[in-house]
């Protein structure tokens, strides 16, 4: 087996109205960009506006029987360009380079996401034949609503152990919040997950950033079940949150709650002083329902940030991801749909900033409903953040 020292990747996009056309055009551009080299992995991002199986079929027609994964998104970023939500297909075709890719999927996930994570990780690892390379990472794409994604990360982590980082994103649907899907081979899977087990000779580095700043004082969550916060500091969670909004409370008079809460997420304080962001998705009585679990006893702070604050972390993210990797072929980026919403007029900036920082490296990203970035410990699910892995 000849192991290439450099991975060659190419991307293509299309915003054609027809799924087949869009899929074919994006795939053709990506595959042709390899200049005749056979792709070892194809990643497909698509808007939910298409008949997804048509899109996937067209991509497969062009790329052939290549390990293919992907998901629905809330917009894409490809080679410095922003493909806004609503219409668009983006395809990455990549050679193996120094890596090996194994893919697997789980469908019909029940309540036990932990077990589904174990099954997915084991299946993905098993799909790689032959001797294993010393280092590994998992690319995880999920299509589940209202589930504790952290539980799935926990399941994956049981299999991978401490030394295999996890990167990826939860599928979006152009902020419609109706149905999301992931792709595996020819299959379009809703309520499932797909993973790529990636092995290589060097350690993999998953980088995550968010750019949010604390705007209030630290608070102790005194009542929560999973992603539902009932009490903060012994008081009803909603009341405390509204107090912490300060002047933004007035926005609630003219704007929907989610529009306001998306710009004022919770920061979950971590032992090392960092924060993991949890967006408040909805109100339920006096409780706050967040986009990820907030354990009881945790310390949280209400955060805030301008578009500039959020975009400021992007160059650093890209650089940190690429740091120390010679001849990187591609930079995979997963940014939150919440961030995109907060970018306002600068909505296209993130794609450009990523590409600017990546230089010649092919950049390929999408906007998601949650980002996977596990590097330390068990925690690996983030929201309103951006995460990246360079190959």
């Amino acid at each position: 087996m000849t192991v290439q020292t450099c991975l060659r990747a190419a991307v293509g996009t299309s915003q054609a109205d027809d799924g087949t056309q869009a899929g074919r055009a994006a795939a053709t551009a990506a595959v042709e960009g390899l200049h005749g080299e056979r792709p070892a992995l194809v990643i497909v991002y698509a808007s939910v506006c298409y008949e997804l199986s048509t899109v996937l079929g067209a991509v497969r027609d062009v790329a052939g029987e290549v390990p293919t994964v992907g998901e629905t998104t809330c917009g894409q970023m490809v080679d410095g360009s922003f493909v806004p939500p609503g219409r668009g297909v983006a395809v990455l075709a990549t050679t193996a380079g120094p890596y090996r890719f194994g893919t697997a999927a789980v469908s019909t996930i029940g309540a036990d996401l932990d077990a589904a994570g174990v099954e997915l990780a084991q299946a993905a690892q098993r799909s790689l034949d032959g001797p294993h390379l010393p280092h590994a990472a998992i690319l995880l794409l999920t299509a589940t609503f209202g589930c504790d994604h952290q539980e799935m990360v926990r399941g994956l982590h049981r299999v991978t152990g401490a030394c295999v980082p996890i990167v990826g994103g939860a599928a979006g649907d152009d902020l419609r919040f109706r149905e999301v899907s992931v792709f595996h081979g020819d299959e379009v899977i809703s309520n499932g997950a797909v993973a790529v087990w990636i092995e290589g000779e060097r350690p993999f580095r998953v980088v995550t950033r968010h750019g949010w700043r604390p705007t209030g004082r630290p608070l102790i969550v005194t009542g929560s079940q999973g992603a539902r916060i009932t009490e903060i500091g012994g008081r009803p969670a909603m009341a405390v949150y509204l107090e912490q909004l300060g002047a933004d409370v007035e926005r609630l008079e003219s704007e929907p709650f989610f529009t306001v809460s998306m710009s004022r997420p919770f920061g979950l304080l971590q032992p090392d002083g960092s924060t993991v962001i949890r967006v408040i998705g909805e109100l339920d009585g006096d409780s706050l329902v967040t986009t990820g679990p907030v354990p009881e006893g945790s310390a949280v702070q209400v955060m805030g940030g301008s578009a500039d604050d959020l975009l400021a972390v992007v160059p650093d993210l890209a650089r940190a991801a690429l740091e120390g990797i010679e001849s990187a072929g591609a930079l995979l980026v997963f940014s939150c749909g919440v961030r995109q919403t907060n970018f306002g007029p600068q909505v296209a900036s993130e794609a450009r900033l990523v590409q600017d920082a990546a230089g010649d490296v092919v950049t390929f990203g999408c906007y998601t409903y949650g980002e996977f970035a596990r590097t330390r410990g068990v925690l690996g699910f983030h929201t309103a953040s951006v995460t990246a892995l360079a190959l």
Partner: protein
Amino acid sequence: MTPEERIAQLERERDEAIRSSQEALRASTRLSRLLTVLQEPVHVEVLLDRVMATLSELFLADVAVFLLSTARHGLEAKVLIGLPGAATYSPTDVAGSLAGETLERGTPIVVREADRDPRCGRAIRELGVEHLAWLPVHGEETALGVIALGRCDSAPFKASELDILVTMCRWIGAALERRQHSLALERLAGAGHEVAAQLDHASLLAEAVRLAATLLDADSAAVVTVDGDGMAAVEAYDSLVPGPAPAGAWPAGILGEVLGTPGLRAHVLGGIPWQHLGGGGGSGTTLVMPLSQGGETVGALCAARTSTLLPFTSETMRIGALFAAQMAVSLSNADLYGRLRAEADQLRFLSRIAEQVGESVVVTDPQGMVTFVNPAHARLHGYDADDLLGSSLSIFHTEEQWHGELTPFREAMLRTGTSTGEIGHMRRDGSVFQAEMTGTVLTDETETPIGHVYSLHDVTERNQLAAQLAHQAFHDPLTGLVNRALLSQRLEHALDSIGRTGLRVAVLFLDLDRFKTVNDSLGHGAGDDLLREVAGRLRQVVRPGDTVARLGGDEFVVLLEDMDSTDDAQRAAQRIAAVLRSPFQAAGSEVFATASIGVAMGDRGSEADELLSRADAALYAAKRGGRNRIEVFDDSLEPCRRSDIALEVDLRHAIARQQLRVHYQPIVEIRDGRLRGFEALIRWQHPAHGLLMPAQFLPLAEETGLMLSIGDWILTEACRVAARWQRDLVVDASCFVSVNLSVKQLHRAGFVDTVRTALTQAPLRPDQLMLEITEDAILESREATLRVLGELRRLGVRIAIDDFGAGYSNLTYLTSFPIDVMKIDKAFVDLLERSDGHAVVAALVTLGHTLQVEVVAEGIERPEQLELLRQLGCDFGQGFLLGRGVSEDAVTPLLAAVALAGGVR
């Protein structure tokens, strides 16, 4: 300090204050997070997983491991966060030597460059863990396990972190111990149920020791008993480590002392008490829990730990004591159940007997409420057995029966313990029946009455049969009229009564003038119809108190009491004659049958026989006078009676003049129609009157004493002829000849010798001769008859009871007399096709077979009768249908043919 410098200083101080407050917040957050997790009501395994995941998160640990201390397996890896799941690591691969060391020291051990430290396990080294902290987790009395947190980066565990971790480990230990305690209690409850479910003593002990070993984290468990001599023995044993079960007994020693300590619930012994049986020395510790039943220590449940030095904690002792107490209760239950089951088996056995016997059985409580009925009882009364439970016994009786005959019955039962009697019962539909019932007071082992048992059977049929037989004894079965015997009684009674009333008695003797013609032309059925019709008309024409009797054939007698004069009697006779003049319907034909009537008047002092004889003479005179006449006896008729004297003279010469004949009527096996023997029947070939039938001369022979010589002659002749058949025709040896005996014959001295001589002279085997006696013969001299029959039986001759059912039909003599064969009277066979007659014959056949007596039906004349008899299982039959009585000459070719065809079998 410039204002700028001052501002910068203040900012630094502010930042430091913020940093410090954040640090403090993080520390407190760590504790609150852990406390929250520890309070979650989840299973131990889930709890440990969440605790370690939280620690991993709170302390930025790439590896978070929990190794649990177990009594039997040492350290067991329960949580391995951060270790690749696909890798297979033993607890040692994870623990290395540091886990044990941490437990021994009881304080944290921190390792730098863990990936290069040989004290660390292979799993830790391979993962590239840089900093590793091992922390012991203690319960109140023992170490519960050990925690390891590892970091793959260069950040060491700070002293402040370790301080927090030590605190956390204390909390974790307490929570784990609580959870293990809850789990132990849950397991205890489950084990209690499982033990309680065992209702067999041995199974319970086996299950208990199996559960005890698991429950108490022991390597083995046993139930040990100590006998009065201080010897201990293992009654049940289970071990989680391989090895033979202890057997035999040993001096109980310290174990005996422990068990003798009052109030002791659990005690830890150094050593294993039963191990020195195998010479093993018994290293380890044993938890001894006395087993008490009824306040007495009956043994001990013992749990032994041999593979670990982990001591039995006070909590384990408490659990063990609770389990032993539960077990003792279950043991008592099992023993009780065993006794009850034995009793129940016995009860079931008795109940099955009660259910399957034909006898009806009902059991009540002392208040008379039904607690048990067998199906026979329910059936007998028309109920379902289940409906009767809890009912009062009174539902089986009418109010009259309940307050009448049952009251003395029950009083007698309560007084003497048992009572027997014939009691009226009532069915569900209100119909009543008689039952022979025995009531017994049911008592428990202390003789305390606990209820009453009644067994009964329906005697309605038996009573009916008895009544029918009694009726039969005094009535003519064909017509239902009074027979000769009852007529004689009534006549005597009537004559006796004359003295009191002064009125006279009239006897009207009548016979039908054309009866023989009807019989011959229309058949016996028509004859019977005619006789029944005549009987009916006679009944209609007489007063209620008068007696109408049939003496046999077409002879009827009407007894009229309270007659003023002969004229009264004559008028009555005329009424009779008139009523008989109307045509009869017989077998579908119109028949005219006039009657001749003889009338005799009886006065005070008249003899009944004489009066009948006179009426008979008057009848004879009427017939001679041209039939359909009425003749009143007067002295002029006396000469008629004298003709009998002439006949007597002729009879005396009949033997010598060889005028007597023996005819032989075949006796056939009904089942297959085979010829089995013959009945010898006497005939008199009278030179003037032609062939006379027995009825025409035997009464005279009896009366004049000629019967003895005639009887002897028949006996000798029949034996001779039968012997000739045996000799000449080679018939089957079982072929027999049956000879009728008169009462006088039977009671004559030397009769048995006469029989013996006849047999010898013939010569005939005794079993080939059957002697038929009538019921009268038995009744006349019971003792003598019994003696003679006994001698005849010893001789080998078979005895038949003739005309059974025609006389008194006392069932008892069938059992007490040596009878081989019962011959059912023709009168019953005639009634076979009627339901009541059928029932009588069926009962008689069953009775005969019950007494192991062969049954012969006489007078079979129709195929229907034969078929019914076959269905009833009657053994033999004779009658016109099967063969009339024929002469010796006529029998010979018949027998020869049978012999040629394979013999008479």
